């Protein structure tokens, strides 16, 4: 097509009812100006030459085997799951309260949402003993307290960082059977400890700048007598 395509106007044939246009075929012929285009091109509508058909592919051998039943191939699944929608109250730097698990009640700083939908969170470790950890949004209460997180670079963390390492399955001989059990307890690799320190050092500076925030993060949340969660403002 040599002339650049102009932006198409909306249909020239307004619909009265779904499926029924206002103008008939002959009216539309006139409206579209086919008569003018034909007149311009000497009586017939301009066509370009059909593209030559591509050479037929080299003769396909008839298959040796035809399956007895026609089996339908399933349609390929093109669905890509999205990470869970993040609550509006949770933004990077928000202090969250963990509701369950080993660190329940701890107040913790939110870093970012991982591609799996889980939240990446850190104590910081020095303040309350919570390391870089993944947490599900449903098990968390977002408070209105925010920490300045601009100095922290959390880009290198994703779900793969947190997966357990696969145990090498070696065939156990009788003698080895009792020995391999001792290898199960693994010390945290130094690399992960360094990552923790790198993230926390920036955070702790930002936390110490705010009055009482360090003590706040070090303390745990608990319900007391007379506290009603449905009336609390977090």
């Amino acid at each position, binding site marked *: 097509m040599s002339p650049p395509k102009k932006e198409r106007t909306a249909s020239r044939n307004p619909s009265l009812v779904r499926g029924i246009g206002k103008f008939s075929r002959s009216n539309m012929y006139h409206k579209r100006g086919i008569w003018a285009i034909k007149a311009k091109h000497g009586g017939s509508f301009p066509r370009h030459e059909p593209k030559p058909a591509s050479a037929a592919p080299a003769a396909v051998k008839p298959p040796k085997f035809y399956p007895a039943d026609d089996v339908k191939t399933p349609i390929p699944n093109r669905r890509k799951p999205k990470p869970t929608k993040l*609550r509006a*109250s949770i933004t990077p730097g928000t202090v969250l309260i963990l*509701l*369950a698990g080993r660190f*329940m*009640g701890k107040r913790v700083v939110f870093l970012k949402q991982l591609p799996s939908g889980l939240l990446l969170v850190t104590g910081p470790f020095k303040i309350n003993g919570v390391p870089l950890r993944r947490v599900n949004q*449903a*098990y*968390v*209460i*977002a408070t209105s307290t925010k920490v300045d997180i601009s100095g922290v670079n959390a880009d290198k963390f994703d779900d793969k960082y947190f997966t357990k390492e696969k145990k090498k399955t070696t065939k156990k001989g009788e003698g080895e059977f009792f020995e391999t059990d001792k290898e199960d307890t693994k010390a945290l690799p130094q690399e992960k400890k360094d990552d923790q320190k790198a993230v926390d050092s920036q955070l702790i500076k930002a936390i110490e700048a705010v009055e009482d925030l360090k003590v706040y993060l070090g303390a*745990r*949340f*608990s*319900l*007391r007598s*007379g506290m*009603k*969660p*449905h*009336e609390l403002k*977090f």
Partner: protein
Amino acid sequence: MVKGRQGESVRLYVRSTILGYKRSKSNQHENTSLVQIEGVNTKEEVAWYCGKRMAYIYKAKTKTKGTRYRCIWGKVARPHGNSGIIRAKFNSNLPPKSMGGRVRVFMYPSNI
């Protein structure tokens, strides 16, 4: 629950009482229990708790999986009446001896 951890214990659940089963005068339906959550007194206040998980914890004589404590999990289903009572459904029906007993209503799945 034996945790082997010293230091502060935190309560992250609301205390509640099991009142009985959903029932009419002479028929009861054990698949739904009625539960009274502490501090909740109206139907409107129950809305916050709907969907929250709850646990009925009891002790048994024999040790299973290392502990004598056992648990039946459930959920807050809907309010019951106007005064803050809730209907709860548990994974298995609560035993009759639980009536008048304690149930923990947790704050998760949270929506705050």
